[in-house]
């Protein structure tokens, strides 16, 4: 009797397996992201949003079964490169996403592209690969880095700030942030202050700002540094006298929650926010909160949109990662995203709208971001003209 059951069970299992084989071998999606270090919460949100999109389709994207490989790059370009090489050689992965930080992108993406792989960025969009060095298998679903700060510059101009002090960490992305901001701002920059990348105490900078007496400051300090900066800004009393304009990485949902009342009144820009009314966005926020029990960040929306774009391309090619067919399908971007209007430019970076958002105290006493209005429409990046695609 027992033997019979066992035989039956194995037969059933065998049938199941055979069925799966007959269907299709899943497409392997390599997700290299940052899960440790203070930036770990960003990678976590991107990863979780991608996994949510796959789970909502029952393990598929665009109707094609997807198998994910996930690794932490620890924000170390060298580690990232090793993981990518292993995936390319041992696991034969062809489709990659997940990278958060530009320095990891710059170190790993050439390896992917040289091996004929395809990369879709859910976050970093360094200028290096947006102009002359653009590539037909490299897509950016988030933004070109400068766009973030250009939108903040446009907002500062719109708010009528005449004299500003600009602050950013002293490294390439920090300097790019100030360049991007100034490209759209146009007013007088009284002082540019560069901070240290590991700096957590900003009291000397606060005193310098007080002495410079600007109308407002623009500061680019993503994640934890930004949280410290905003807390110290409020404690110094400058908050009540001087305005602050920031881009999305320096004021997103986690920063608003961690800084609380100190964030209220800061003017920020973003290409997506939790209160967007389009059904895709509302469904995403609901799904994310139900599965993970936390408010999704703008990074999470980028991860989700990345998965949706990949899904649309896989659907059109029937799951084949043939470069040209995938590219034709991908560039159509034939899918509704959480952020609404979206097109790929000739350099395969986004053309999209940017909005003003501000931190307000919700009915529940928690600080949340509220969308105020549009700042830039169909905004492109400044490097696309150098790209010969």
């Amino acid at each position, binding site marked *: 009797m027992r033997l019979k059951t066992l035989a039956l069970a194995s037969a059933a299992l065998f049938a199941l397996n055979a069925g799966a084989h007959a269907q299709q071998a899943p497409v392997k999606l390599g997700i290299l992201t940052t*899960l*440790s*270090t*203070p930036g*770990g*919460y960003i990678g*976590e949100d991107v990863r979780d949003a991608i996994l949510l999109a796959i789970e909502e389709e029952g393990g598929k994207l665009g109707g094609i079964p997807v198998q994910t490989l996930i690794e932490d790059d620890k924000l170390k370009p060298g580690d990232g490169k090793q993981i990518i090489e292993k995936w390319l050689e041992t696991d034969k992965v062809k489709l990659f996403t997940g990278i958060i930080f530009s320095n990891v992108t710059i170190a790993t993406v050439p390896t992917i592209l040289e091996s004929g792989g395809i990369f879709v960025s859910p976050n970093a969009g360094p200028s290096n690969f947006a102009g002359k060095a653009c590539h037909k298998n490299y897509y950016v679903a988030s933004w070109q880095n400068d766009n973030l700060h250009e939108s903040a510059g446009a907002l500062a101009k719109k708010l009528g700030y005449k004299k500003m002090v600009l602050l950013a960490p*002293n490294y390439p992305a920090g*300097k790019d942030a100030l360049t991007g901001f100034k490209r759209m701002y146009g007013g007088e920059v009284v*002082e*540019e*202050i*560069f*901070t*240290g990348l*590991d700096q*957590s*105490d900003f*009291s*000397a*900078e606060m*005193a*310098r700002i*007080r*002495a410079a007496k600007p109308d407002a400051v623009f500061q680019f300090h993503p*994640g*934890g*540094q*930004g*949280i*410290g900066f905003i*807390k*110290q800004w409020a*404690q*110094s*009393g400058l908050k009540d006298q001087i305005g602050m304009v920031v881009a999305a990485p320096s004021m997103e949902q*986690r*920063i608003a*929650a*961690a*800084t*609380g*009342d100190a964030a209220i009144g800061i003017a920020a820009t973003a290409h997506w926010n939790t209160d967007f009314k389009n059904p895709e966005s509302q469904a995403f926020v609901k799904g994310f909160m139900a599965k993970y029990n*936390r408010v999704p960040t703008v990074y999470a929306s980028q991860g989700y949109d990345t998965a949706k774009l990949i899904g649309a391309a896989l659907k059109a090619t029937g799951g084949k990662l043939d470069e040209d067919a995938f590219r034709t399908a991908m560039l159509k971007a034939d899918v509704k995203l959480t952020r609404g209007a979206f097109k790929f430019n000739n350099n395969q970076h986004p053309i999209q709208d940017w909005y003003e958002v501000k931190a307000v105290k919700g009915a529940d006493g928690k600080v949340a971001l509220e969308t105020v209005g549009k700042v830039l429409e169909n905004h492109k990046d400044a490097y696309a003209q150098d790209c010969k695609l």
Partner: protein
Amino acid sequence: MQLLFEQLLNGLQLSLTLFLLAAGLTLVFGIMGVINLAHGSLYMLGAYAGALAAAKFGSFWLALPAALIAAGLIGAAMEWLVVRRLYALDHLSQVLATFGLILFFNGTIAWGVGRAPLQMDTPALLSGFVQLGPGLPYPTYRLAVMGVGVLVALGLWYVIARTKLGMLIRAGSDKREMVAALGVNIAGLFTLVFGLGALLAGLAGVLVGPIRSVQIGMGEQVLITTFVVIVVGGIGSIRGAFVGALLIGMCDTLSRAYAPMLLKMWLTGALADGLGAALSSIMIYLVMAVVLVVRPRGLFPAGG
């Protein structure tokens, strides 16, 4: 003039925070001969215990003891379970083991609390600012942190210079074998010193909670500067840690405040801003290099 005064206060405030971290690290390194990379983790655990307690009970005044108890107990447990096995080993093994502890604590927080930074507000009593002069409001909370730093420095001085425990600690950092040979319970002394160091790190963590971001990896950011402080001050000496913290904290703050301004006397704006920032970011290491050339064992080495 007023700006200089404000920047000096800022420097003093940073120095006293650094001192809380450096005091524990220098005692552990000097007396027990252990390089404890996980000292920054104790700072992080203090901040997390404080932020979690503040969120649960809604009071900073309960967060403070919660952080001290958590950091002190975890520190003592760490000594008993892990660090005790490292005394006989070389520095490389100690670095490896305590680096492992960093990964363990970061992983535990990511798993248990989550990766999102925590909120921690200034206590209502200490929010707002004090007018130190016309047009010079200074955050009350920062003044309070300075007060705590001074009290801890005085307290440590008293314990080390005036009590029996302090005598043993001083003796232990100078002539460890001799103290053991005289029949002092060195194992107990070590657990106590390690726990005390952990307590101070936890205190620093909870005090900066309302100022900085409470998040994973916050300990590693401050650890390097703390090592610079104890190397400059002389390893094993509380007085050295205090003077080193003052020197490094002041240098760091004043160079960030004035380097670009001074360079603007000779250079154009953007160049001066960039160069000034680069210079201020290496300033503390320059100071360390100069001190080590003049006094290779630091300013006030224990037993020197």
